[in-house]
């Protein structure tokens, strides 16, 4: 956009929000140039931080009138570039819309503004012994508006579902200024389930202005098992055996030998260093009896499957210590490799062994090491490809290898993204997962809500004629974006 319309836009915005809520100078804009996917950067046209719904409505009306594109941002912790700004688009940050609007303990629900952080929701109802179940690793910082946009997951999805399974109602502002309500506090609504379309739509259909989520009773009993294996395929089989036996762990996580070594060096969690793989199996429930029973059964299965060692956390402190290794796995890898690239594919669980072997083969072919850390219970892989961006060609090799890994995920019947979203990062991979008719349908659906393509244009759904390589999450010298956040 050339300077004249930009000036007109900024002048008009300055009449809507206070001066400190409108950022236009280069030094103010730079902090917003990327989200958690730091490899992709672009300085936004301007940044506006509305403080209430009226301001937001006025801003959106202005953008619609001037036909200025909009990128919406929560906390900017996303890992697929969904909130990466564009030089031609206004970045609307919703972090100031952070009020808790209503807690309804009888209905076990809470209504909040989009800028409330994921963890703040659970904190707001902890005195009622309730909590909000989806727990992406960035939960201390990420906002519920962003969670809705991305259909965020976390460690406990296997038992408690994704964001879409836990959101009851969303209010959304459309580009033409309509404030729509999707879903309700009833368990169903009349007509089509449009709420499902809005959740995970990555800011392409509208701007979330209010979210009502269901709350769960906090399980009073939690136990954590750690099982070590001398072959990673055997650990994969154990995951299937636990699920086949009718046990639904609250979390079922796997780490391979390289991740174990790195995590142990970093956090001293007490992991068996020699193991080829470990499984962390968290069990929760209402009564000590039921959880004890699940634990006994799980230990037996793990041993039968060939676990060389099964440890049970003896106390809450011990449990936290064992989790610390898993939660610190990403920064731990950052200590052993100058850069790494995080993948996010899902596969049917039974193919864990095969796909891990394929990743191993790719690792040999490309000459790049891989550390595997993942939500095994959901078949959600997070292979970390280790590389050095200072070595010419390594970055491209890492990207190519990532693309190959996602192809294997699709071939195994899985998906290119389990929880990080498509954003800008996986536009290419979308072309492998969906055919032309399906992608066309997605574009037409966007048109229903946003006929002039003003909301987060160019993200999430690739154009039919162009599926360009677009980059990835590259971590340089262990400098994770938001290093204060746990990444798992």
């Amino acid at each position: 956009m050339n300077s004249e319309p930009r000036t007109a836009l900024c002048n008009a915005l300055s009449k809507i929000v206070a001066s400190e809520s409108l950022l236009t100078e280069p030094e103010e804009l730079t902090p917003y140039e990327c989200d958690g996917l730091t490899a992709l950067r672009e300085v936004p046209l301007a940044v506006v931080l509305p403080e209430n719904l009226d301001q937001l409505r006025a801003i959106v009306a202005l953008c619609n009138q001037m036909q200025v594109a909009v990128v919406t941002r929560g906390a900017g912790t996303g890992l697929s570039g969904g909130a990466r700004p564009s030089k031609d688009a206004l970045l609307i940050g919703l972090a100031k819309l952070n009020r808790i609007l209503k807690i309804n303990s009888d209905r076990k629900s809470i209504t909040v503004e989009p800028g409330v952080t994921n963890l703040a929701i659970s904190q707001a109802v902890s005195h009622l012994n309730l909590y909000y179940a989806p727990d992406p690793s960035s939960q201390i910082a990420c906002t519920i508006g962003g969670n809705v946009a991305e259909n965020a997951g976390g460690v406990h999805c296997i038992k408690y579902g994704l964001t879409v399974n836990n959101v009851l109602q969303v209010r959304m502002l459309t580009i033409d200024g309509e404030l729509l309500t999707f879903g309700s506090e009833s368990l169903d609504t009349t007509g089509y389930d449009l709420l499902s379309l809005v959740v995970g739509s990555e800011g392409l259909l509208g701007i979330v202005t209010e979210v009502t989520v269901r709350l769960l009773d906090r399980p009073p009993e939690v136990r954590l098992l750690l099982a070590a294996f001398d072959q990673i395929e055997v650990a994969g089989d154990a995951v299937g055996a636990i699920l086949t036996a009718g046990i639904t762990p609250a979390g079922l996580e796997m780490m391979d030998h390289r991740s174990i070594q790195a995590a142990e060096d970093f956090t001293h969690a007490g992991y068996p260093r020699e193991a080829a793989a470990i499984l962390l199996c968290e069990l929760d429930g209402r009564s000590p009896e039921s959880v004890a029973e699940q634990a006994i059964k799980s230990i037996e299965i793990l041993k039968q499957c060939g676990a060389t060692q099964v440890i049970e956390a003896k106390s809450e402190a011990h449990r936290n210590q064992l989790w610390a290794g898993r939660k610190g796995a990403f920064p731990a890898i950052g200590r052993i490799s100058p850069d790494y690239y995080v993948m996010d594919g899902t596969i049917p669980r039974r193919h864990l062994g095969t796909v891990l072997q394929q990743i191993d083969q790719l690792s040999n072919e490309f000459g790049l090491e891989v550390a595997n850390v993942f939500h095994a219970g959901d078949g959600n892989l997070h292979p970390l490809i280790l590389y050095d961006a200072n070595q010419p060609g390594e970055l491209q090799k890492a990207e190519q290898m990532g693309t190959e890994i996602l192809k294997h995920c699709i071939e195994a019947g899985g998906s290119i993204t389990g929880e990080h979203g498509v954003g800008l990062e996986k536009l290419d991979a979308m072309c492998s997962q969906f055919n032309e008719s399906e992608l066309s349908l997605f574009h037409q659906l966007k048109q229903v809500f946003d006929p002039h393509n003003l909301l987060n244009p160019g993200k999430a759904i690739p154009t039919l004629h162009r599926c360009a390589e677009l980059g990835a999450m590259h971590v340089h010298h262990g400098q994770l974006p938001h290093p204060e956040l746990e990444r798992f």
Partner: protein
Amino acid sequence: MADQQVHLQKQLLDACAEGSPLRIIGGNSRPFLPTCSALATLKLDQHSGILEYQPEERVITLRSGTTLQELNQHLQQHRQQLPFEPPQFSPHSTIGGAIATALTGPGRPWRGGVRDALLGVKVLTGNGSILQLGGSVVKNVAGYDLFRPMAGAYGSLGVLLELSIKTVPMDELQSYWSTTLEIEESLQRMQQINLNNLPLTGMSWADGALHVRLSASREELMACHQKMESLNLSDQTSSSTEHTFWAQLHHQQHPLFKRTDPLWRVSLPPASPLLDDLEHSKGTATILDWGGAQRWLSTTARAEQLRSQAESAGGHAMLYRNPLAGVERFHPLSTPLQLIHQQLRRLMDPCSILNPGLFSEPLYQDEA
């Protein structure tokens, strides 16, 4: 067990060419539900068979004409079940019909709905394209979740050909509890029970009694025993009457469903009070299900009264059985949502031949 995809696609393309609407039928076991007036039918009952099921995945992929009976038996062999407990109206009820109508059993508030269990669909659109939406893995955030609105769309967004659905381990054991109670006190009592962190999978009021169902392991059920007694509920686990009650409620065979008055399904937020002069009015027969969030009212009350009260309480009312002349079956949509519905439908069924007329369609037809 056969793959009828090619045949179905041809039938649809022919209908499309002739501009002749199609009524989509599975086992034809729910003729009492809203349906379109098209004379030509697209029959899916022969398009059946389980395509992929590995118990360890807890996902089943199957053709839509597979009967619920076959599906349930298959899952039971592996000690698994569908989480949403679809009612089975006859041995011919199909999984396609269950997904399309999104009806769920008594456990809905605690186990989730059809949309929560659906992972992906292969769908035949109104212009004859075959699309794969969603997938067969539990975690998948690629593309819009266009497959989820297929649950409850009554076929109007496409003909369901194949479905991938999440399964859960079979309930280890169930216990049943009940107490005699007037309807006026029932909602408060349900609320009290719901706040006790129990393994609830059913809580209903019917015929002057409150009924509670728990599903868990033997150990956990034993641990609940004292709590349930302190809530003044008596153990009916060995009562055949109680087993019958839950089966009848689940499959909508309770005598209330056989009355000839209009039967309304009212969906309300949990913990909503009774509606004024409705559930407990003279001449109205009522079942409160889902802890009060789903209410069945066999009543001659005016549709406007019912709908406005349901709407004020944050819910909606569907005329479920025994229709009334001039009364829409589904609760009317707000204008902006109606427009989105029409546009979405046009995307999936451009010639308006799939079960037309079900969801507030006049505007769409005018425009078209």
